[in-house]
């Protein structure tokens, strides 16, 4: 609460008062009066500050609104700027002469306009309005933690920061149809198939003629094509097209590898946008759209439907999926503390108060005896006890009489030991003063007899006291404070707090979750301790297989399955997916695979040789890059070949591909399929 400025003023006032009251007071009362007046000033200022603070605390209202195109909305849209308006009102009775009201903007989001903070006089019932603009390039979530209010007095003696926690997650929905947020106005070619041709031609009970075939006994007579029958001189039956709309199921890969990258620019965000566009294009064609999100462990199905509520739900699911961040994994404690501690201090300043989150001295002491090898310390203690035993036995003899026989037999050994020590001590220099020599003799004897225990105590002390110094003390203090807050948030027990202090992995994992909950970026470890790439998840192929087979089993008509996944990195582990695609194709479903293309891998047509300066090839980094690019392209070509072989269509999506181009390509593929 007290600032450095206030502290120095208090020290000066205190010193002047003390001098005035004691030494200079008699002859120069003005010194004491000056000091007393300064202390009175300080006390009154502090009293006013505390009164204002206490009477305002808990009486501050925060209202947050998201505006898009001047209208209040509940969700934002990616690619369109939205205005955040926060109204903070002091409902207390006290007025604050100086306050900074700041809305905490979402992590890793750039402010496009306006200001997130206002310096105001915080008067009762006078709202303070903060407005700023945000724009997200991709779908995800805006995480608003709350409003920070910093209070100070006019002289700058006192300061207090409070944080009004009002966490709100605002979904950033994928853009409507194209990346510019506009409905597709132009028509590159017929989105709807020409009259009489259905996109997925199969016999049904529609009104359009599909085909003519030989009559099979049991066919209804009304379906006989009489003219054709007359021409062929045999019964021919008409087959009509099915007019049931196509169901399109999107499979979106949300695995860890897809979440890598800057916020709003991950492959997952890109594919979410594509999925959103496909869903909206399909809905525009009166098709039903479903969504299946899958990762390395599980899949989540949103059944196909066609109404507006369903579309919004689908977009929301895409936004939530896009907001997921990769598991930082294998983090060390220190880097996590370095990121998590300031964040926790910012968001939970009230929970860092020593009255509720204490730091006793004992927290820093490093107990030697608790360590695995601490028992060694008992050996010198035991040794000292043994060498001091004759003294104890002597007291026993004096008080209780003769010793037991077995003790009597070993007593000469002890006497020999004491005699031995005494002979050593006698070698010490002598002062010839009896009064000095006797205490010196006793002290030397004591030291010799108790040397081991003295050294042990010294070692125990040095071991323990080290905990009070850097780097042990600061990290332990922070771990305790953070651990208590984590335990509070999770409903933990005191044992959990202690575990956070001692168990590095447990702490690092929880700190990682804490940061992820607050959408804070953590440096992600790409490789594990053994140097393996952490994000190669072959298990997602099996999950996708299960999801795809499940969709096939639920399908009633020919359906369109669009798989938006990074399958390139799976390499030879694609077998499960191929099997599922083969099953889908055998049931006459259409399967389309859309693969995200990394931005750092140049797009090249198959067979196109890369022209690289031979001199550059001498650089190891360039060589590695070329090898990686070539490897990636080869894997993609192999994947494409294998998927095409089982009847799926493969598309790749680069960061630069506009959504419209993808849709056109998609439509072309669908059209081609339907016009087979």
């Amino acid at each position, binding site marked *: 609460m007290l600032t*450095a*400025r206030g502290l120095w*003023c208090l020290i000066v*006032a205190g010193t002047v008062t003390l*001098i005035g*009251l004691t*030494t*200079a*007071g*008699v*002859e120069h*009362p*003005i*010194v*004491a*009066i*000056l000091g*007393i*007046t*300064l*202390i*009175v*000033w300080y*006390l*009154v200022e502090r009293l006013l500050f505390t009164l204002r603070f*206490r009477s305002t605390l*808990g009486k501050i209202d925060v209202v947050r609104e998201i505006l898009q195109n001047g209208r209040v909305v509940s969700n934002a849209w990616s690619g369109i700027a939205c205005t955040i308006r926060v109204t903070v009102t002091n409902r207390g009775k006290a007025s604050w002469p*100086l306050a900074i009201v700041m809305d905490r903007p979402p992590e890793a989001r750039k402010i496009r306009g306006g200001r997130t903070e206002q310096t*105001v*006089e915080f008067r009762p019932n006078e709202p303070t309005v903060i407005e700023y603009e945000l724009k997200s390039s991709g779908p995800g979530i805006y995480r608003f933690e709350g409003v920070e209010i*910093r209070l*100070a007095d006019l*002289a700058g*003696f006192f*300061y207090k920061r409070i944080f009004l926690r009002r966490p709100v997650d605002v979904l950033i929905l994928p853009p409507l149809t194209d990346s510019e947020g506009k409905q597709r106005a132009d028509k590159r070619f017929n989105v709807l198939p020409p009259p009489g041709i259905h996109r997925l031609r199969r016999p049904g009970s529609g009104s359009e003629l599909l085909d003519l075939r030989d009559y099979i006994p049991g066919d209804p007579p009304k379906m006989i094509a009489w003219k054709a029958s007359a021409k062929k001189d045999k019964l021919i039956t008409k087959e009509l097209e099915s007019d049931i709309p196509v169901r399109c199921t999107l499979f979106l890969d949300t695995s860890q590898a897809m979440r890598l990258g800057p916020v709003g620019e991950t492959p997952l965000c890109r594919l979410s946008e594509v999925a959103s566009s496909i869903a909206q294009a399909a809905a525009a064609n009166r098709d039903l759209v479903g969504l299946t999100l899958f990762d390395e462990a599980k899949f989540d199905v949103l059944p196909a439907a066609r109404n507006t509520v369903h579309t919004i739900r689908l977009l929301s699911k895409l936004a939530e999926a896009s907001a997921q961040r990769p598991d930082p994994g294998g983090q060390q404690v220190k880097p996590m503390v370095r990121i998590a501690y300031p964040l926790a201090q910012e968001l939970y300043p009230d*929970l860092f108060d020593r*009255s*509720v*989150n204490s730091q*006793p001295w*004992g927290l820093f002491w*490093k*107990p030697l005896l608790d*360590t695995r*090898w601490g028992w*060694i310390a008992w050996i010198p203690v035991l040794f000292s006890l043994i060498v001091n035993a004759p003294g104890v036995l002597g007291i026993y003899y004096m008080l209780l009489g003769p010793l037991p026989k077995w003790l009597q037999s070993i007593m000469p050994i002890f006497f020999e030991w004491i005699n*031995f020590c005494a002979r050593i001590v006698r070698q010490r220099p002598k002062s010839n003063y009896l009064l000095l020599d006797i205490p010196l003799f006793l002290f030397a004897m004591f030291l010799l007899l108790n040397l*081991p225990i003295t*050294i042990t105590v*010294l*070692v125990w002390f*040095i*071991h323990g006291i080290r905990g009070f110094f850097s780097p042990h003390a600061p990290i332990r203090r922070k771990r305790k404070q953070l651990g208590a*807050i984590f*335990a509070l948030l999770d409903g933990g*027990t*005191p044992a959990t707090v*202690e575990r956070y*202090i001692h*168990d590095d992995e447990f702490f690092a994992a929880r700190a990682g979750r804490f940061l992820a909950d607050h959408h804070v970026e953590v440096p992600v470890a790409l490789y594990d301790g053994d140097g393996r790439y952490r994000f190669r998840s072959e298990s997602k192929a099996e999950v996708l297989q299960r999801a795809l087979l499940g969709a096939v089993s639920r399908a009633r008509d020919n359906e369109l399955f669009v798989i938006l996944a990074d399958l390139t990195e799976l390499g030879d582990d694609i077998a499960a997916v191929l099997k599922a695609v083969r099953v889908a194709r055998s049931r006459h479903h259409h399967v389309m695979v859309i693969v995200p293309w990394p931005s750092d891998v140049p797009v090249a047509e198959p067979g196109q040789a890369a022209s690289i300066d031979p001199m550059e090839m001498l650089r190891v980094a360039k060589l590695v890059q070329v090898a990686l690019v070539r490897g990636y392209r080869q894997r993609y070509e192999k994947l494409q070949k294998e998927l095409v072989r089982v009847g799926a269509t493969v598309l790749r999506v680069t960061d630069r591909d506009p959504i419209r181009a993808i849709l056109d390509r998609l439509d072309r593929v669908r059209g081609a399929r339907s016009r087979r």
Partner: protein
Amino acid sequence: MTNPNSYQLYLKVLLDERVRGYVMVAGCALISVFVIQLSTGSLIAGGIPMLIGIVAMMLRWTAMPGFFVVAVAYLTVNPFGVPMSRYSGGPSRLLSSSFSPFDMLLVAAVLVYLHAQFRVYSLAQQAFPDERVKAARSKRDSLDRRPPRLISDNELLMMILFAIGTTIVGQFIWLLITQLEFDSKVFPPIRLRRFTLDRMQPDFFSAAVSRSLLFALGLSGTVGLARFVFWYWQIRQWNREEAKLLLLDMGWQESRREFSRIETWRAARIVEQRKPGETWRRIKKTGGRIFTVLFFGFVGITVLMIIFAYLIIR
């Protein structure tokens, strides 16, 4: 690009029409101090505080107001800058020390100057402390100031009235502690001071100690009471999370020692299970090295001592 904390910016704020009032009031207070101190007959007594005040205002040295108070106090006692004994009326001076017009004016002027100076610092330099860690700070980061637009019309007047009020309260307190004295022979041990010329025998408490004790007692009583009231108010205002954390923390404090032992063993066990021999490696790597050296050093020294002693005896 202009440095947001540059001196030009500071001067620009000083010349702002709203801030100018504070600067002028601070200047007037400094002149008042100068004139009052000049009445002691020393130019140094008046000049040095004024010089410090001007430096504080112009060069934005935030430690200067503290030095200003110390200088005023010191030069009041020693107007020529060097300690010399002066007769100022003896104990009878105390009787008339409260509500002396010169003293009141001096104290009020000092207080007004301090008020104005610190408010100018808030307006032109920094109003809120920077809470960021040092590594995250940069000289180019703009410090949080109080915008001059927030200065209300009656703020200056209120400040002066507040300073005068504080001065009067200070005088009352001085009057109180000079008129009362500590006396261990009576109960309660406070009584009215008697100023008589025949009091040759010193009391158990000297006047200075008595004044100090009275002031300390009053101050600690007031502060203690205020702290108690605000402590209770704070507890009443605790939110659910704070109360839960308090209970959790108390539980932790009670059982910390046991849990610590369990967790130390658990951590060692986990490490040992994953990588056998890791505990020993960690012990060697961290503090265990010191322990090992000391332990084996002790064993070695003891053995050497015994051998040496044995050789001497032989």
